[in-house]
């Protein structure tokens, strides 16, 4: 190695960074790269809550629909019974009138 190269090598000797360099890197490592289990849990909570709420809503809607259908069916059956009764009364009255008309004609 020539004098010049030796001089160059001495000028480019390694030197140390600041005394707190390693501590700063380690702090960065723990801030940036540690797994965040707690935050993952917090991320999932709203989704879980939303899913439960959606399930309850669907169940409640289903129950309400069932109740409404039952009421409508009962009301329909009651109306049908009333109609049959009304037709029966009308038929009886018409028969009576028919007999009276027949008697008058004789």
């Amino acid at each position, binding site marked *: 190695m020539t004098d010049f190269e030796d001089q160059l090598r001495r000028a480019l000797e390694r030197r140390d*960074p600041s005394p707190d360099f390693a501590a700063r890197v380690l702090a960065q490592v723990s801030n940036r*790269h540690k797994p965040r289990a707690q935050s993952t849990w917090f991320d999932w909570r709203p989704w879980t809550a939303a899913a439960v709420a959606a399930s309850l809503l669907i169940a409640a809607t289903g129950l309400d629909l069932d109740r409404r259908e039952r009421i409508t069916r009962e009301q329909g059956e009651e109306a049908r019974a009333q109609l049959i009764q009304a037709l029966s009364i009308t038929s009886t009255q018409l028969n009576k009138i028919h007999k009276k008309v027949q008697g008058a004609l004789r």
Partner: protein
Amino acid sequence: MTSSLAQQAAIQRTAEDTDRAFEAALREHQSMVFSVAYHFFEDHAAAEELAQEVFLELYRHWREIQSSEHLVHWLRKVASRRCIDQARRRKLRRHLSLDDAPEPFSLMPATDPLVKRYIEQLLAALAEAPRMIVILRYQEGLDPAEIAEMLEMPLATVKSHLQRSLALLRKKLAFAAPEETI
């Protein structure tokens, strides 16, 4: 050697305690990574910032490191490439050419600390790739073939950069060995 073996053992334990092995590697190699960046940028803060980025990347790739030799190679490679990329991106290279550099003292003893400073200034005036080649050659003691592999350059290009840079530096430095002086 003992240190190398200890580090090898530390790397093998990474599955058990990555953090401890990483910290050992950080403390052992921080001066190497910092010095590559410092001699490249000639700026303490910029060098520490880059060295920090290199070690954070090392932590992310820790499981890929296979041995202490691989670790040193990885750190040199990532540090040198990041230096060149960052200098090109941020235009940190000084707008000082070797022709503009001040002349050294006419009689300059080889041990003068001013020579060190002057060499650093001359080095900062080189283009990115030749600058890094000189640093890897004289700070890290790598041969041209290793530098070519590290920087992914043809060997002939590395040798050419090295010869040209040394000729320019030598000419500018006007070395003052007693027998060479007036």
